[in-house]
């Protein structure tokens, strides 16, 4: 499933500079240094964190999309940064676990 297709499944666009990226697997975590070494390339990364370091970790680990859960949003300047770095970000009101369960149905 591509990142663009997530939007038809109840996830909301924050910024999607690369809509055709294919999602392969998922990773959930909020301790950024931990995520940095463990989140696989092309995964969907679920997190509740929303500061500038999230975009930095995403541009290192290179997940297909960052999924902000629990209704978390990005401040405007960070959304613009994500866009300029080619980092896809979507959001959902669902708690992290429920969002992961939803994703599991969609990407398997």
């Amino acid at each position, binding site marked *: 499933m591509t990142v663009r297709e997530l939007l038809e499944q109840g996830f909301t666009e924050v910024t999607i500079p690369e809509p055709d990226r294919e999602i392969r697997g998922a990773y959930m975590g909020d301790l950024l240094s931990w995520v940095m070494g463990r989140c696989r390339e092309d995964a969907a990364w679920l997190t509740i964190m929303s500061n500038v370091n999230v975009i930095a970790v995403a*541009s290192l680990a290179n997940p297909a999309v960052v999924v902000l859960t629990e209704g978390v949003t990005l401040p405007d300047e960070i959304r613009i940064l994500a866009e300029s770095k080619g980092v896809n970000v979507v959001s959902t009101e669902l708690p992290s676990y429920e969002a992961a369960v939803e994703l599991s149905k969609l990407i398997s």
Partner: protein
Amino acid sequence: MKELSLNILDIAENSVKAKAGLTEILITEDEKTLKLLIRDDGTGMEEDFLKRVTDPFCTTRTTRKVGMGIPLLKMEAEMTGGSFRIDSVSEKKDPEHHGTETEALFYKDHIDFIPLGDVQSSIVTLIQGHPDTDFLFRHVMPEGTVELDTRELRAVLGDEVPLNEYEVIKWIEDSLKEQYEDLHS
């Protein structure tokens, strides 16, 4: 990071990379706060680089787009309601007195405070990996102080004995362990 001791390792490695002769790692705790101060006499940073150094998209590494050590430490301190500062004087600006000083203040009673973790291992790892530079470690707590100064070790051992020799590392490990145990017994 999962423990502050890993942040200490990361920041002190920056000091060594900046050709520090002496790197001071000073931890000061009271009931409510933990202050981490890492000070070196390395080459320091130019002012424009210093301004960008807390930006995760700035780094000295060429293999990576971003350097996360300093931004993460800043975030971890601020998450507890604490603060972060970094000051530096470049060798170019002042050939006599140059170096970098990084300070992070944490509120220990905040739920997001990351525990200090195994700081003894971090210190040993630093000395083992960089036996030719000096480290001063001082951990001040309400119950007392733990201290280790490689310059003192060098004065006793003489220049022929490298600090990463097994017996020396073992002695350092035991010394730190004993000092902590004495405070908590």
